[in-house]
């Protein structure tokens, strides 16, 4: 079974037409990979479906806009995957 990171990296590669070799756990989806808001909509939809979750993008956006976290918290892939794992774990409780 693929890890969360492998699944997410695969989704990003397929959805945004980015070579898999350019994607690392340290990659920032926006700053490093150049994913724009429309492509991120595709990524979010694919992640929601793949993991059976609803990523709270509106809350994350509010957090970033309020300055309580940086975009790294949600858009660096290893952090994104950690947040996905939390959402999956919360779902199964």
């Amino acid at each position: 079974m693929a890890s969360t990171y492998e699944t997410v990296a695969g989704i990003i590669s397929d959805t945004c037409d980015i070579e898999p070799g350019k994607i690392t756990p340290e990659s920032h989806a926006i700053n490093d990979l150049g994913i724009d808001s429309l492509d991120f909509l595709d990524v979010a939809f694919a992640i929601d479906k793949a993991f059976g979750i609803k990523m709270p993008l509106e809350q994350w956006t509010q957090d970033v806009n309020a300055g309580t976290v940086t975009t790294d918290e949600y858009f660096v892939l290893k952090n994104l995957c950690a947040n996905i794992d939390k959402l999956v774990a919360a779902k199964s409780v």
Partner: protein
Amino acid sequence: MRLEYFQMVDRIVTLDVSGRRIATACQVPERSPVFEGHFPGYPILPGVLMIEIMAQTGGWLVLATQRCAKMPFLMQVEKAKMRAFVAPGQALDANATLVHEGSGYAVAKAHIKVGGKTVAEAEIRYGVVSFPNETLKAAMVETARRIGLPEEFQNGA
């Protein structure tokens, strides 16, 4: 339907918010400047307007689920197929089903039928955001009343 004003939906026929389904009636006008150009001597409804019909039909479903508190804006169209020509004066039955409700976005599958036969289909993706101003919100609520969106789904406005 008033093509020049992008008023595509005449009436909500059925609305099942818990089942995330909607059906609308859309009467193509006999005459419109649109048909003078599309095409001279052979008037048919432009495919982009068929997509708009499906987007608005699914959009009203999103508005109902949000009780008109948020506005769905068309962001993406996938797998669109225009299977048959639509002529002036034809009565269209549009329907949409919400297949995913994400955070700040929604995805619907929509169809248009004429006499029970599918003439168009597409997957529509929306960005669902707060109304940018009161003018738009008021106009949407007024349209909601005109096309028969039940009062209970206008509450958030």
